[in-house]
């Protein structure tokens, strides 16, 4: 087992290197004079020169790359012009907000999509099957920012069930004592049910928006994969041996069907992390997505690049974990690999 982990880690490392190289290249591909962009629109020629020297832009490219990597190793992702803070500390502060949102959305999506896909496959042709297919096609067609806005309109403006989309907590509540950075968990740990409820209310709509977005690929994959499993020879054997409905569907079909679904989780995360940025903008969620978007509008480039780099690294790690998970579930990989 440790050799498995080591092997997979070994394949993740070149990818990480690729991520660093690409983000480095992105910093150097800026049109015009890079130093001007990092110095900001209001900079004087001397300030620009200083920035140029600071960034080492006068050195040859390989040396610049070495500097860049050295900077990363010491946690230097540059300085944000708009907040005045180092990019890394900005990101660290805002990361839990994005994580809480994304994970809630994903969890909600899985809880709905997987059972829906299973039932749709087992009861092919039924109304649930059709509903599943509609959800899958519509979910893929709906722009995530549009569905977010629709939800705000219906649940906040019309029905008054949801609070105004203004972030993680309303003005009457303050953040719970920091343990994980997840307001839901932290407020429960502190025993503060009132804050918990407030945080949950704020989280509801954005999480549902993300969930609606993630529903489509997950349910589509679950349904397709269950259909394939149900049509397979080994399920035929299980049926021919009279095994119970539950055993056939769950122990034989479902467990095998889950394998392809786990593999698609990586792709789902890719979409989710992108959708996260859009949802944060709609709901004014103080995560790293809105951090990057705000910086973009102000032509503040360092946060954007820091954002891309951090997201890349996070995503590589996520994929590594998914690979590990797959290796645990599938004995063919575990034993032969």
């Amino acid at each position, binding site marked *: 087992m440790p050799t498995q982990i080591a092997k997979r880690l070994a394949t993740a490392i070149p990818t990480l290197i690729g991520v660093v190289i690409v983000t480095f290249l992105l910093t150097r591909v800026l049109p015009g004079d890079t130093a001007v962009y990092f110095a900001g629109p209001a900079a004087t020629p001397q300030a620009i020169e200083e920035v140029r020297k600071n960034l080492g832009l006068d050195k040859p490219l390989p040396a610049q790359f070495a500097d860049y990597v050295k900077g990363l190793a010491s946690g230097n992702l540059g300085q944000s012009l708009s907040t005045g803070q180092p990019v890394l500390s900005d990101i660290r502060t805002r990361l839990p907000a994005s994580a809480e949102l994304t994970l809630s959305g994903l969890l909600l999506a899985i809880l709905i999509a997987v059972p829906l896909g299973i039932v749709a496959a087992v009861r092919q042709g039924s109304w649930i099957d059709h509903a599943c297919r509609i959800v899958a096609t519509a979910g893929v067609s709906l722009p995530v920012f549009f569905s977010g806005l629709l939800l705000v309109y219906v649940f906040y403006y019309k029905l008054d069930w949801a609070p105004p989309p203004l972030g993680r907590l309303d003005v009457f509540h303050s953040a719970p004592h920091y343990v994980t950075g997840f307001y839901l968990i932290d407020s429960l740990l502190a025993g503060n049910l009132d804050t918990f409820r407030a945080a949950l209310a704020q989280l509801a709509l954005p999480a549902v928006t993300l969930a609606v977005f993630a529903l489509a690929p997950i349910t589509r994959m679950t349904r397709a994969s269950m259909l394939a499993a149900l049509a397979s020879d*080994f399920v035929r054997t299980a049926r021919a*041996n*009279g095994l119970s409905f539950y055993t056939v569907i769950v*122990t*034989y079909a479902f467990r095998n069907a889950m394998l392809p679904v786990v593999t698609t989780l990586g792709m789902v995360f890719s979409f989710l992390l992108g959708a996260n940025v859009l949802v944060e903008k709609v709901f004014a969620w103080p995560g790293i997505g809105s951090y990057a978007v705000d910086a973009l509008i102000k032509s503040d480039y360092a946060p954007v690049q820091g954002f891309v780099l951090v997201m890349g690294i996070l995503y590589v790690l996520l994929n590594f974990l998914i690979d590990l998970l797959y290796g645990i579930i*599938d004995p*063919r990989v575990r034993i032969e690999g």
Partner: protein
Amino acid sequence: MAAAQLLDIKDLTVEFATRRGLVRAVEKIDISLAKGETLGIVGESGSGKSVTSYAIMRILDRAGRIAEGAITFGGMDLRSASESRMRDLRGSEISMIFQNPRAALNPIRKIGKQIEDVLLRHGQARSSDAREKAIEVLTQVRIARPEERYHAYPFELSGGMCQRVVIALALACRPQLLIADEPTTGLDVTTQKAVMELIVELTRARGMSTILITHDLGLAAAYCGKVVVMEKGKVVEAAKSETIFRAPSHRYTRKLMRATPRPGITLRDLLPEDAAQPSSERPSKAAKGRPKLLSVRNLVKEYKRQGQGGGLSGSLAGIFGGKKTEPGDAMFRAVDGIGFDIAPGESLGLVGESGCGKSTTSMMVMRLIDPTSGGIFFKGEDIGAVPARNFARSPWRKHIQMVFQDPTDSLNPRYTAARAIADPLLRLDDGTDKRSTRARVEELAGLVGLPANLLGRFPHQLSGGQKARVGIARAIALHPELVILDEPTAALDVSVQAVVLNLLQELKATLGMSYLFVSHDLHVVRLLCDRVIVMRQGRIVEEGSAEQVLEAPKAAYTRELIAAIPHPPV
């Protein structure tokens, strides 16, 4: 005075809803089976034999349904039984095993657990003794070291072992009836024998009834007391095994009997009695003294083995016939230094079981893959020296052609039959224009007996036999001197095979070609080939004339192979 029948099928009709409307896969059939009896249901593809068994088990596809008739099992009406009642019956009173054993097992569940599932479901064990009982069941199907194997996953077992596990699953709860649907198709003939004997032993010991569904008449003859012959959904003949084989009454049964390759006949005898006789006599053997067409010397092909050879996979390799690898043994020799010749006009048979290296050998002679070492000489020229990558452009390409095993896979799905046959003409024959290509294609179609109006069809619109003819026409288009045939009739029905084999013989005589005929079917080889080579584990264990090898074999392995071929009781 007939004893009470265990299984009684009357007037059974099964319909399927398809795009083209309602199709009757089985029409008004009557079958009966007494306790302890073994019944063979024999038929070619489309006969409805498998559908019948699915109907008995009530596991028909969604689109299928029992339209008419009655199925009675031990006095119980199976047609109207509830699904939960059927679930109780399946696996405990009636069991079924299928083709392709590895796919029939749950790939991510230990086989011991799978057996436990069945035992627990039908109350044959409690969770406290389930494991013990599962191991006992494994022992009964002759799986060595069952306590160890209990923890194995299907992918760690050989095909033969997987089939034993499938049998274990089916027999674990001691059913009264076992239905075996082509249980040995795809298995080597020696494994086939072992599996069939196991089935016979277990069913006889327990007084079980068995239904054996097969396309192989020899198999039915060897193992069944009663035989039912089906054609296009109807039963055409039902009688005791000896009666069917000594004095078949229906025309179709006679046709099937004749078409089955067996000792003591010639190719012409495979065809129905009223078929047009092929025009040529069997050609005289190649004259001695003429230079060899093909010479192979010390041919070796090595592959890198995946992972280490020790442990479970190494010992498993030793069990199903491969070499036992030592730890650190990184190379695997698929072909281990063989040599043979083919004379002009001669037909050489290359036989062996799976993994013996015969397909690899034929691929190398074909120049589709490169040998690791050794020489391949065609008319004295070292064609082995030309890399496989470049051989398509070599002037030798058109002299050596191949007929592939799977006619579906070897035809481009987007090419019509005419275009597929024309391909070698367009690629390798300079100086032909469109009109003469078309004429050539029609001529070739005529030679292989393919009606000209089928030339515009796509592969999925052609039958298996028609596709095989297209493949043959393509192979002979440029009158090659050597044609390699890699199990060309393995995927065909036996009656179609009879026609195709005769066709191949005729073409060989007309066009003066040599054949390298690769097959696992010894009877077929004997009919078509002058000389035979037997391969095992990459080496040649015997060679000689066809009669000599097949009637008086010298090597023990050859004797084993021949003994394993099922034949009717004499």
